[in-house]
């Protein structure tokens, strides 16, 4: 009987294993020390090895499991992550209010039933609330417009 490798599961386990190998490779420069006096490299190396081993067990286990029925949905992912990325990159440069408007419009655009009007109203409301709580209230150093 031929068992099929469950590809997403295998990829995930391999990603964890790759992380473990990567961490081992980076840790090659850290002094290991002795068991009594451990250097900064001892524990990271031990954890990396454990990660590789445990992920390998999952990789073996996940053979012939049914593939998970959830499919990634690209649009919400791209728009929401893009919105956050834009906010992070723009907030210091073009200001709190433009960055927030872009973020809210991007996030609202993936939701069913959102209109330009409702999204813009929401963005306005959030800008005002955020300005009052965070900039005025807590004094975080952001300017509403400009860097």
């Amino acid at each position, binding site marked *: 009987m031929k068992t099929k490798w469950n590809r997403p599961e295998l990829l995930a386990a391999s990603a964890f294993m790759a992380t473990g190998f990567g*961490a081992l490779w980076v840790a090659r420069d850290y*002094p290991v020390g002795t068991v*009594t006096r451990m250097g900064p490299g001892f524990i990271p190396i031990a954890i990396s090895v454990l990660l590789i081993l445990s992920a390998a067990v999952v990789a*073996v286990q996940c053979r012939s499991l049914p593939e998970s029925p959830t499919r990634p949905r690209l649009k919400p992912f791209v728009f*929401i992550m893009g919105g956050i*990325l834009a906010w992070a*990159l723009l907030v210091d440069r073009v200001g709190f209010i433009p960055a927030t408007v872009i973020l809210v419009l991007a996030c609202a655009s993936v939701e069913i039933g959102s209109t330009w009007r409702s999204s813009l109203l929401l963005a306005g409301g959030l800008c005002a609330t*955020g300005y009052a709580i965070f900039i005025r209230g*807590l004094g975080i150093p952001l300017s509403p417009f400009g860097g």
Partner: protein
Amino acid sequence: MDLLSGLALGVEMAITWEGLLFCLIGVSIGMFIGVLPGIGPLAAVAMTLPITYHLQPMSALIMLAGIFYGAQYGGSTASILLNLPGTSTTAVTALDGYPMAKQGRAGVALFITTITSFFGGCVAIILLMGFAPALGKMALSFSSAEYFSIMLLGLVAAATMAIGSPMKGIVSVIAGLLLAMVGMDTTSGTVRYSFGILELQDGLNLVAMAMGLFGVAEILKNAGQPDRPTDKLQKVRLRELMPTRDDLRQTWKPAIRGAGIGSFIGILPGAGPTLAAFLAYAMEKRVARDPSRFGKGAIEGISAPEAANNASTQAAFIPTLALGIPGDASMAVLLGAMMIHGITPRPEFFTVHTDLFWGLVVSFWIGNLMLLVLNIPLIGVWVRILTIPQRLLFPAVIFFICVGVYSVNNNPFDVLTVIVFGVIGYLMNMLNYPTAPLLMGFILGPMIEQHFRRALLFSRGDMWTFVDRPISAAFLACTAGLVLLLVFPSLRRTAGRLKRAF
């Protein structure tokens, strides 16, 4: 300090205008977040964490703790009315709560869950008052070996008791430990895994990580999906809340059993309220004279799990405060918050921060009372919250995540960290890797490393030190038992499959 003078001190600490105000804010936020499906208490705490930097430690703790137990109250509302758990801990409540609502008894179900939640909370707070200082006193004799072993138990428990594959939980915990290695090693001062990035020298930001894993990842899962079918939502009127005498008679015994199970699970490091609720439900089904009633609106099916999840949430404060070992991921975040305020929950916590401990205990009583009052007369308001459409809710949550994380260090780098962990959390959710153990590993990582190294330094490199000390050996034995119990069956299954494959 004895109980009475402790309570007196607690009253003095917690019953101030500020204490009461932040208790009310905390439980209201918790309730609000709990009612809304899709956003858990972890995301709520992470979002409010930046605000607490500007508060007194006492008020900050009262508020953050209030969010946790408040969410347990709120979670059952959506479970009962919409068959959608507001928080994962109340998923079981939907099994019998929703059928009750369909029979037109939603009001009774909501009333019963509130009362049993209150009861479960009270039982666990009494335990906390009696047990935590004693445990703290005992723990004063703990050395690094004991700490290492108990943290190991906590991590293994968190990994294997999560719902799903225990092996994936273990991978997740270990990955969390590895993430904890980023930043400066406290013993040698060497900077590890910073990849030349200045911001990573202090380690990854806990708030950003929690927001990515639990806030953004959850929203990504639900974004763009149709709204909840709110047209089916029943109006709940105040006079429909009153249970019949029969209902009450069927409630009190399961509530006591549920509170017992919940308290026990809560004290165990690593096992959270979700497990407590599931166990309590299973227990009721077993002891019931007629198990076929379950799933069709049996009142025991809501009262036991609701008492259990609240008891567990409150009891989880026992290991968190006495040993500094969080009971579950939410407690881990609270622990992180306490450390940010310069409070290290340790056995010494009860002697150094007596006022904080008793203040917190008294605030639990007040908070639970507030929740009782908030819940029953205002139930209509909470039900209305369920009608907020996603197109307004989700962008608002994402916005508060961004600005909240930014305000921790006033640095957009942390917001980029949110994106990275949002992607990781989304992928892990999709492939059924539990994310809570990752956070547990991350928070306990530096402590476990420190204690491991120190224990071996004291024993001159002798690994037997962990077994020679009886308390440490007992914890290790529990850990080994858990591993054997939960990993062995799955290994055996794998071996069987391999044999068939070749």
